[in-house]
Each structure stands twice: as C-alpha cells, then as structure tokens.
C-alpha cells in the first residue's frame, strides 16, 4: 500500500553531527557489509576491480567546503535515506513495493514486488535510492530493521550498522517521536535541521550544524606575540644584546 500511513507515534531515525564527522567512510563500508548479507538481495557491484567500479550503496559520504576566509569549513557529509514523513518515493511507487511502516515510520522496499521502474529514485530529492545493477530492484537504507529489533544480537548492537561503527560518535539513532529521547534533546540543543526543507518531504533524520569557529581576539594567544615577548637567555641573550648595539 503506497498511500502514506497516519504519522506514527514512534519515528525512528538518525542524527548526523556534521561537527564531528571526519569523513573516514567507516559507516559507508559497514553499511554495505551488513546490508549485503541482510534484508533483501545482496548489494551488488559492477567491475569492482576494474577502472570504473560502481555498485549499489545505501550510505554515501560527500565533502563540502562552506564559506571563505578564516571562517570557511570543510564539512564531511554522510547522506542516507531520511525516512521522510511525507515520503514522495512511497506515493510514487506504482506497485505497493515501496512503503512506510505505520508502527515506526521506517521506509522500506518489498523487493519481491518491485518492478525496478526507478520512479521512486526520481521522486527522492536526496538521492537515497539506488537501483541494484544485478537484481534490478530498488535498494535503500532500511535503518537496519534487521538489527534494531534483533534479539539475537547483544543489546549494544541493536542500532544501525553505521551508528555502531562510527568511531567518532557522529551518528546517533533514536526515536524522534519522543521529545525526551537522546536524539530529540540533541536536536533541540544543537539546532538540528532538515535537508531541502522546501521540497516538503518532512525528513525524520536531522543534521547538527558544525559548531562556530572559536575566535582568538586575545593578542597574547598569537604565536608571534609570544615569541616577541620571550626573553632569550645565555648565548642568545648575548647575541640579542650585541646585535641591538650594532644598531
């Protein structure tokens, strides 16, 4: 059923902290590793060892530069499905393969029904869906639905693979429907925001902005000033004094 369900009380999603991400790509690799053997068909690659390797991945890390001058920033920017509340990929699907779960808001693809028309990928503004080159069905982030409820895993592993593997804690998983959850508090405190809000998709995943650069107006902090202020000793004091006398 590709009509969207009523907004669920539980809204599972990710917070991505752009201040912390170092662009190491560990989340990308662990996502592929888990999902190639989990939900649905494997995530295939084409000419993986050739000159132009390509394949389906559910999580990609871009890098952007923002601003100019000393306030400019390099920002590593992970991007995966944002599990939108008004998901255009779901309503566009002609077969009912694409759906949003009524219980927790996760957007999934039923790969046995998918005809591989690609219209859902066209309707997603974030590029979160990629056609699998071998299987001919649409692949997307499942929010590791086969991990988060999996009682065979130790409790600390019941989070999406990208979150579990992030070495810098730049990714967090939680319920945005609960205003007191860690992720909701983080978003409230740090000013978490939506990507492409003008597209009207109401994404669940939120991004935390890079923290502003610390300004050093204090002259004493300057290395040059510190070097000038230091008094040389011994041989260098004699040298300093002698050169001073030479005028």
């Amino acid at each position: 059923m590709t009509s969207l369900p009523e907004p669920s009380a539980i809204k599972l999603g990710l917070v991505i902290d752009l201040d912390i991400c170092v662009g190491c790509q560990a989340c990308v690799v662990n996502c592929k590793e888990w999902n190639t053997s989990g939900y649905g068909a494997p995530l295939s690659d084409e000419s993986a060892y050739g000159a132009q390797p390509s394949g389906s991945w559910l999580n990609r890390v871009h890098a952007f530069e923002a601003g100019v001058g000393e306030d400019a920033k390099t920002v590593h920017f992970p991007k995966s499905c944002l599990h939108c509340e008004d998901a255009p990929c779901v309503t566009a699907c002609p077969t009912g393969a694409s759906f949003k779960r009524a219980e927790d808001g996760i957007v999934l693809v039923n790969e046995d029904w998918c005809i591989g028309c690609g219209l859902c990928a066209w309707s997603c503004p974030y590029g979160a869906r990629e056609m699998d080159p071998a299987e001919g069905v649409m692949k997307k982030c499942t929010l590791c639905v086969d991990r988060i409820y999996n009682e065979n895993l130790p409790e600390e592993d019941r989070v999406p693979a990208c979150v579990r593997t992030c070495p810098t804690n730049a990714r967090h998983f939680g319920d945005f429907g609960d205003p007191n959850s860690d992720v909701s508090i983080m978003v409230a405190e740090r000013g978490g925001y939506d990507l492409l809000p003008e597209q009207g998709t109401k994404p669940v995943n939120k991004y935390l902005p890079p923290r502003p650069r610390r300004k050093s107006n204090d002259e004493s902090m300057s290395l040059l000033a510190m070097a000038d202020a230091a008094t040389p000793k011994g041989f260098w004091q004699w040298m300093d004094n002698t050169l001073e006398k030479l005028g």
Partner: protein
Amino acid sequence: MHPAWSIIFFTSISGLGLGLSGLIVLGLLDLSRFLHLFVASSAVFGLISAGLLSSTLHLGHPERAWRALSQWRSSWLSREGVLAVLVLASLGCWFAWNFFFGPPPLWCGILILVLIVATVYATSMIYGSLKTVACWHHPLTPVCYLMFSACGGSLAFLSMLALFGQPILGILKDITLALLIGAWTLKYAWWWALDNRGSASSLETATGLGTIGKVRSLMPPHTSENYLQKEMGFVVARRHAIKLRYISIFFGALLPIICVIFNGSSAVLLGMATIFHITGIFVERWLFFAEAKHVVTLYYGDEQLSIAS
C-alpha cells in the same frame, strides 16, 4: 534526466495512438467497410500497445509489470496503467459494436474520449508530479502532452480520411493547423519558463550549511559515476539544447503545417506530415528528459539548477 529510448517511444507513440483514437470514437470516420474498420482498429491498437509494451522494456522486472496496476490511489504511473487498460478495453468494445451493429452512439465515444484525455494527462503527470525535477513540475507540462497528442492524432486522422478516400472537411484541416500552432507555442512557453525559472533549492539548502557561507562540493563520495549520476545527471543534450529545440519545431510544426496547407487532401502528403510530426515529437521528448535537471545533482556539484547555462 536519463533519456531512456523505451520511455521516449512510449510517450510519443501511445500519445499519437490515443490522439487518433480520440477522433475516431467521435464517429468522424466512416467505418462501414470492413477494410476501413480493420485498418483503423489495427492502427489504434498497434500504436497504443506498442507504446505500452515499450514502457515495460526499461523495467528491472518486466514480468511483474501487472503489479503496477494496483496503486492508483497514490501513484500517477499506476493511474496511467489502469487508464490505458480501460481505454484499450473500451476501444475494443467500440470497434466490436461497430462491426456488429454499425456506429455506436456518440455518448459512448465521448465517454471513451474522456478516458483518453485522462490517460494522456496521467502520462504527463508521472513526470509533472515530481517536485524534484523543477522544470517538469509546471502546469504547462500536462498541457503540452495533451496538445501534442491531439496534433499527432489529427494529422494521423486526416491521413486516414485521405487514405480511405473519404471527404475531408475544411474545418478539420483548420483545427489541425490551429492545434499545431497552439501546441508548439505552448511548448515554446514551457521552454521559456524552463530557462527563466529559478529554483528554491540550492546546495546551501541541500546541506543546510548556507549559514556559514557559499557551499562548494569538495569531494564526491565515490570515484566513478554511480546510478544517481547516470540517471539524474545527463548532460549531453544541454550542450546542443537550443539547436535541438529548433530541429524539433522544424519537424514537428513547420513541415506538417506546410504539407497540410500545400495539399490537405493527399494521403501521401498527410502521411508524410504525420511522420514529420512524430519525428519532431521524438526530438522534443528526448529533450524533455535530457534537458531536465534533478535536484540531487546539487549534491554532486551542480551549482545551479537552471538549464540555460
């Protein structure tokens, strides 16, 4: 957007077939001779089903295409499929009635015509409903599809009248000329809008980093092209877009108009006019996809979504 041949063929050919059948069901063609009935019904079913079959060619799983008829409540692609099947079925009934009992009543034809208009509208809304492709998300998109379908349909209808040696009313020729001029004028307006419309989305809104300053792409997330770039970042057409627009107008409008004005009763000339027109539509449809930019290309360093650049 990637211009898939199967989709270009589908939208152009089924558009032509639907336009043609829209005029036939109004009873303007005398189908009392079996040969005429056979030729007209073969042309209509051939064109519409060739288009529909072609549209399944780009699917990853064509054998599951029947599932696409299920989600008509939310999906324009599904609605298009359902309506096309309804049109084919009702056209089948209409031709069968003609065969057994003579011309069906006009209200049947008008009912089928409404279904036909809805089908072409649904085809256009598959693309027109996508907010992510700003140039498609425009009220003129469905208008152009409908007008082109009517143009192609009238030219094919005139050819059929001439071929069957039936009298061609002057008003039909005038309507065809008016449709041709109107359709391409609207298409020109669509192109103008495409060139002059800004987009609300930018790399700043896509990343949310606009508060820091201008955002530039520093590194793509992968070393070679991926599905998104192949599918949404097609660039070849944009280099020659203006030339191709004029080529499509030359074939789609100018040559057919000359043919109709020169001799609007010759089956050969009218047939040529139809072929010229559909050639122009192929180019127009190729550009429709190839010129269109998807908002996701922002993430890959396209600084602006406007196409004219």
